[in-house]
């Protein structure tokens, strides 16, 4: 059975019921609209509006879901020796997210958050955390495209507050 999803720019995506179910938000909406896997009429006559997701982002989300539809629900986490927690990102996911520039990753993350797709959300947050890791503040600001709204004195004060004592 298929489910119709409608994005903010009125694009209709027809996806498998199982894929739609991967999003907690969509799954809840389907429940609220009395749509069930066995009731084809309810699936045909209704479509799920997703006003926070655009066509381009939705296509990416569905691509990810197609790949992961048979995955067991799992939460893989590792602690490295400095106490930094990391999610395990599979090779396919790394490849999937590799070519996205930062702005698009953020859009995708926003969508994963709104649709409540935990696996995709973890993958993206880990990817962004890896991009931040080991960089200096001005490099990160450039990557995020952030205009600094702190004065030099405030920066100095923050640096002083967070300094390691051996520095």
């Amino acid at each position, binding site marked *: 059975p298929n489910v119709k999803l409608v994005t903010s720019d009125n694009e209709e995506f027809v996806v498998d019921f199982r894929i739609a179910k991967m999003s907690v938000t969509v799954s809840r909406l389907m429940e609220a609209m009395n749509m069930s896997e066995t009731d084809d009429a309810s699936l045909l006559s209704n479509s799920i509006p997703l006003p926070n997701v655009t066509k381009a982002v939705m296509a990416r989300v569905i691509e990810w879901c197609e790949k992961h539809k048979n995955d067991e629900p799992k939460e893989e986490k590792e602690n490295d020796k*400095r106490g930094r927690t990391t999610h395990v990102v599979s090779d396919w996911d790394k490849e999937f997210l590799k070519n996205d520039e930062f702005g698009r990753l953020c859009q995708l993350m926003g969508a994963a958050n709104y649709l409540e797709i935990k696996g995709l*959300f973890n993958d993206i947050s880990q990817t962004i955390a890896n991009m931040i890791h080991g960089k200096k503040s001005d490099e990160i*600001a450039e990557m995020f495209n952030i205009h600094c709204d702190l004065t030099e004195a405030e920066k100095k004060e923050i640096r002083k507050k967070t300094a390691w004592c051996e520095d």
Partner: protein
Amino acid sequence: DLTVKASVGETCASTCDCLTNVFKKQGIIAEEDHISNLPDDCLLEILKLCDHDDLDELSCISQRLYAITIQSRKHAVKERWNMLVKQFRPNGDRSKEEVTWSSVYCVGRQRKRADIEDWKRYVRCFG
């Protein structure tokens, strides 16, 4: 009625003063920057995956990131070095003094073993 309004106005003004006094410049929420569109929950999830050094760098980028790094540090609080108590093996010979990690405490709280690497950095410059 007027007195009530006045007092309400006053508290508002003083709260605003408090907030504006924290930072000199007005906070910027720019459309074009990538993280302004992300809700705090998302940012927090990212920062949970960063270590202290990354958080240090992030904290001096913008007011919003500064505020969020403080929240995300809750998971592994970076204590001040002067809050540490260093204990020595009681063999009396100070040249061979050694910190036993089980004996390193923070006042009122013992840190998890996972954070011991951080501890070493604190303690190295101690004494």
